[in-house]
């Protein structure tokens, strides 16, 4: 009997990223403000990143849910989580009241708990990325 836990984790991780991306994409101006408030990007790069990032999240999350390019999607999500961890850590260290994690509609501030969430998502993504599954890219010839 196959264990359902890996599948459940993959679906959950995918759903979190689809939701996080969609909420940001709904209000690009507000998300751009959040990105700007981190103060990590030059002003010229802020809007393009704010437009692109939510859709990369949605796309990677959707790939995880449908189970296509599973390792790729998990890798992209893990990489994004590394960036989020770094950005939120810097924001906390500098005392900034910003998160933008689930878009502006979910008004929340980054806290140590945000770091825990990000770390948990990162761990889940790494785990999904390295587990062998029946739709494992490396075991299949081509798509």
């Amino acid at each position: 009997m196959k264990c359902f836990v890996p599948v459940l984790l993959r679906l959950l991780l995918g759903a979190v990223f689809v939701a996080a991306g969609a909420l940001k994409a709904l209000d690009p101006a507000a998300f751009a403000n959040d990105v700007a408030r981190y103060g990590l990007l030059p002003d010229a790069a802020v809007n393009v990143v704010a437009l692109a990032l939510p859709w990369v999240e949605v796309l990677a999350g959707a790939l995880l849910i449908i189970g296509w390019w599973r390792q790729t999607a998990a890798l992209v999500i893990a990489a994004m989580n590394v960036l989020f961890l770094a950005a939120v850590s810097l924001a906390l260290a500098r005392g900034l009241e910003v998160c933008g994690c689930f878009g502006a509609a979910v008004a929340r501030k980054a806290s140590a708990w945000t770091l825990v969430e990000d770390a948990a998502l990162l761990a889940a993504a790494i785990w999904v990325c390295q587990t062998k599954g029946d739709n494992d890219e490396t075991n299949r010839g081509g798509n």
Partner: protein
Amino acid sequence: MLRTLQRALCTVAAGTLLGLGVNAVSPRRIPWLRPPRITVPAANQIALEKARRLWEGGDAVFLDARATNAFVAGHIAGALSLPVESFDAAFPSVRSRLATEQALVLYCDGERCDDSIRLLLKLRPLGYTNTHVLVNGWTLWQRAKLPTTKGDAP
């Protein structure tokens, strides 16, 4: 592994194109290049201590320049919501509560936030000249543990 990396780059590129493409046709589109940030001239700034005294004496109206949902999530007690992004729609309901000589303290959140100075630049031509910006106001106010409330835009 190499293939996974290539596909990861493809995913990022596809997401980016999707984002820029959706933005091109979206009614909520934003420019690719962010308009330059407006810095608050020193003459328009007010120190937290002075703002606090105005608040305690009831001598100033505080205007929150942030988006409505940020206001609802928490704001300076007694402040009115006047989001600079929807100024034309929001101003009529605020106007009746402001005399032009009224001292106004405008705030948003973050050292780099320019919503409050943009609000000041909209109010000044309407005759509101006694206006001051509390830079990084929401953060400073909370840090000083001064009174805040949550709830609907008035």
